[in-house]
């Protein structure tokens, strides 16, 4: 994963890189392909007015505005995945069958404030 040091006080909400390596979790013997995949994750703040520029719901923009004027009463919106992609995994099962499974929503393509 690429960590974003807090050099800028409020890095905006965005997708950060996270690569899951099946070898590192010890699954490389029975997962035939892929060797790993870019899962990514969301990190960053949804402060006003930045939240207006990120693919946010209208409500999230309102909430970020409320947070900016009364932080003690309203928390900022959350930085979450808003667009995801599937992956396919090829592996052996315990009966030596070769299995292909399709998993929806495994890769974060885009983050937004909600």
């Amino acid at each position: 994963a690429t960590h974003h040091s807090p050099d800028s006080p409020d890095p905006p909400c965005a997708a950060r890189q996270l690569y899951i390596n099946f070898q590192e979790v010890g699954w490389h013997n029975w997962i035939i392909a892929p060797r790993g995949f870019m899962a990514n994750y969301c990190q960053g703040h949804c402060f006003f007015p930045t939240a207006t520029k990120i693919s946010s719901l209208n409500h999230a923009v309102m909430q970020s505005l409320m947070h900016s004027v009364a932080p003690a009463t309203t928390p900022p919106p959350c930085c979450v995945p808003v667009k995801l992609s599937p992956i396919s995994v090829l592996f052996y099962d315990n009966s030596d069958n070769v299995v292909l499974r399709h998993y929806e929503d495994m890769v974060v393509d885009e983050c937004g404030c909600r």
Partner: protein
Amino acid sequence: GALSPQASALLQTLGLSPPSGPPPTRPVPSVMWRLFQRGTEAAEPQDLPQESQPLPCHVEELGVPGNIVRHVLDGGASAPPEPASGSLCLEKPLFFNLSFLDLKEQLTLVRLELNFGAPGDLAPDQGWELSLAQAQGPRLWGQPLHWHQREVLLSRTVPSLRDPLYFDMLSLGLMGNSTFPHNLSLVLEVLPAREGALPPGSCSMLGRSLEASLLVVTLDPQLCQPAPRKRR
């Protein structure tokens, strides 16, 4: 070794079970590689126009709904075929272990593939009659095959055994959602379509070169998320 609770929870969420032994050495069938590559390409829908984006939970190449494809080898492949009775050239039991089928999965394709290994000069213009029967009931060990109760499912005449042959088992009404068999026992009979002497030893070679496999496609609705609502 022992799995951490986190790994166990993750595997369970993905519907996977940890391997129970050393990795198998069987080669990955080309059809599975092809489906995997198609699935991987289709997973990049961003750069596709909306109307040609792949349907979620659909196996495009096979034209059926599904999100789990399994390639199952004949469990009796290593057993030599028994002496064929009468004018049969080959009488081969086929056995498929389907205990992996989960009730929450819907069967959408069960395709039997018979690959005789393109037996070169085995009477190329011979023509063959194939018959597929379901073996029923327990079989006493040592009892000759033809004593085994069987129900003929289909018969087909093919010009040659050069190319792989495919049989849609679901269309035979053999399996439906409510009748999930834990295994599938079949008997394949092969005999020449025309009289005439076959090269000596060709039938036993046919039995040895036969590779039978099942391609089983199922749909687990729980893994299919509804399409995200458009933002108002």
